[in-house]
């Protein structure tokens, strides 16, 4: 096999995509897993907010890497090492343009959103926050944007403040403004809520935080697959995301950070790759981005991630958003016909996440009985327990749609829900 075979795979796939634009049937063909049969029925996958499925292109890139140019990067001078390093750094450049960062060294590879947030809390937070300083998060944060700040606050004696929300699941921006004072040193909020679908007005949040001199991290885990991210336009100091939610591999994310801030921050983990020179007396650290990438990184997944971004950009994020919004509208109207069903999360600006509860039925029963019908939804608190408490519920059922989902599948969900109601009624 030629070492270039991986490029060919990508090439053919792209031609197919360009020719068809958003031909959903052909998009579905790009995702082998959609052919799985679950409990005798063809899989209906509506758990995309947890993780999206991966197109063939990404799977081929993964095996292509291992088959043709697996090597450790940034160290060897042999052919494979150079090729692997080039592919790795190519993804960094690709990621830079994906979020429109000014410099490629502002892109740090992480394990995911959680890892990125922990990195900032442990380095920026530890170095620059002190007793009595305040950190602001919101009611709708994922646990991964709560716990690292709680840990920091506990260690440093800082105070955690929480922006409340209204019954629709929109942030109360007046209350946010009231929380902002000269004591506010950090604001960390989610771009898009994984439980509600709410798209937060983060540009405004960032501007207001900057006005009091606070730094801002945006948890972009749910946003990045749905619409275009421009960190320079947003003006955020940090932006964390996970590739597995953008049709890419698991266990991989990026942290974007403004260069001057990243330079001012101490390193996170110590080890190989992140150093310039090590003696037993003193170690000097490597420059950005390597300062924050200790040890052998997740090379294969980084290499393959580029293909996921290519895939998304070839379809076009605005095409994806338009199509997904159509699915959300269709589903929202369809579930409204179901008696006793209440949608949790009715913000005006939403991505394709539909969370709901049904009177007298436990969300877990809904999940089990839909699973029997081959329909995968997520049930539970979605790692947002404080948010569930705000709505006085223990959990919801959540259907979240991606570009390969169809209205026919939503019809199956509705039929499935009627069956659940009949069985439990």
């Amino acid at each position: 096999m030629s070492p270039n075979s991986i490029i060919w795979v990508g090439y053919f796939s792209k031609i197919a995509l360009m020719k068809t634009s958003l031909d959903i049937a052909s998009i579905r063909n790009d995702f082998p897993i959609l052919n799985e049969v679950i409990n005798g029925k063809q899989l209906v996958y509506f758990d995309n907010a947890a993780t999206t499925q991966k197109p063939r292109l990404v799977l081929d890139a993964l095996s292509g890497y291992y088959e043709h140019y697996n090597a450790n990067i940034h160290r060897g001078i042999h052919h494979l090492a150079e090729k692997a390093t080039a592919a790795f750094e190519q993804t960094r450049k690709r990621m830079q343009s994906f979020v429109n960062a000014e410099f490629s060294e502002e892109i740090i590879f992480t394990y995911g959103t959680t890892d990125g947030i922990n990195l900032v809390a442990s380095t920026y937070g530890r170095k620059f926050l002190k007793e009595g300083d305040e950190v602001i998060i919101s009611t709708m944060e994922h646990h991964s944007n709560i716990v690292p700040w709680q840990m920091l606050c506990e260690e440093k004696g800082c105070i955690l403040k929480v922006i409340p929300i209204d019954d629709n699941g929109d942030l109360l921006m007046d209350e946010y403004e009231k929380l902002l004072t000269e004591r506010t040193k950090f604001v960390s909020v989610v771009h898009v809520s994984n439980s509600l679908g709410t798209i937060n007005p983060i540009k405004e949040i960032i501007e207001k935080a900057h006005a009091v001199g606070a730094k801002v991290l945006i948890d972009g885990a749910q946003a990045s697959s749905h619409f275009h991210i421009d960190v320079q336009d947003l003006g955020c100091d940090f932006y964390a995301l996970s590739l597995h939610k953008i049709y890419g591999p698991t266990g991989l994310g990026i942290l974007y950070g403004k260069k001057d801030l990243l330079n001012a921050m101490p390193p996170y983990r110590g080890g190989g790759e992140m150093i310039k020179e090590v003696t037993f007396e003193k170690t000097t650290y490597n420059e950005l981005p390597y300062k924050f990438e200790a040890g052998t990184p997740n090379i294969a997944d980084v290499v393959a991630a580029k293909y996921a971004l290519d895939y998304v950009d070839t379809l076009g994020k605005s095409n994806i958003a338009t199509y997904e919004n159509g699915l959300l509208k269709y589903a929202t109207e369809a579930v409204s016909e179901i008696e006793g069903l209440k949608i949790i999360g009715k913000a005006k600006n939403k991505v394709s996440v539909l969370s709901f509860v049904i009177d007298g039925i436990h969300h877990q029963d809904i999940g089990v009985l839909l699973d029997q019908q081959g329909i995968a939804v997520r049930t539970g608190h979605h790692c947002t327990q404080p948010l569930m408490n705000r709505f006085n519920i223990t959990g919801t059922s959540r259907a979240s749609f991606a570009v390969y989902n169809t209205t026919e599948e939503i019809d199956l969900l509705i039929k499935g829900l009627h069956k659940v109601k009949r069985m439990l009624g």
Partner: protein
Amino acid sequence: MTINEIQDELISDFELFDEWESKYEYIIDLAKQFPPLEEQYKTEENIIKGCQSRVWLNAYMESDLLKFEADSDAIIVRGLVSMLVKVLSGHTPEEIASADLYFMERIGLHQHLAQTRSNGLAAMLKQMKAYGIAYQAKSVNQ
């Protein structure tokens, strides 16, 4: 009836159903017939926290036999809980501690006992056996 006889009976009950729907309808029926646990026993101490649904388990000795009462806030889990109670409750601690539970597998419900289901069932079963072992030790020490 011995633990295994009860298991075998459950297995043959479920043999009547060849579709998932009738199987789950039966489990839901079992849940509806299962007496709810009295509120006073729904304590923090008796709760077995699953990720999504809650399960309560109360155990007590009655003339050398270990008895269980249980409940859950989700119906299907409640039905499955009722089966575990039916199989294990009212036997000696030794029998419970050494019981080999095969009925869930044979009925095709073993996935509910998997930890990934995070419904508290696997933890409940473990707790029932732990009670068996604990009461066994108690009677030996007496």
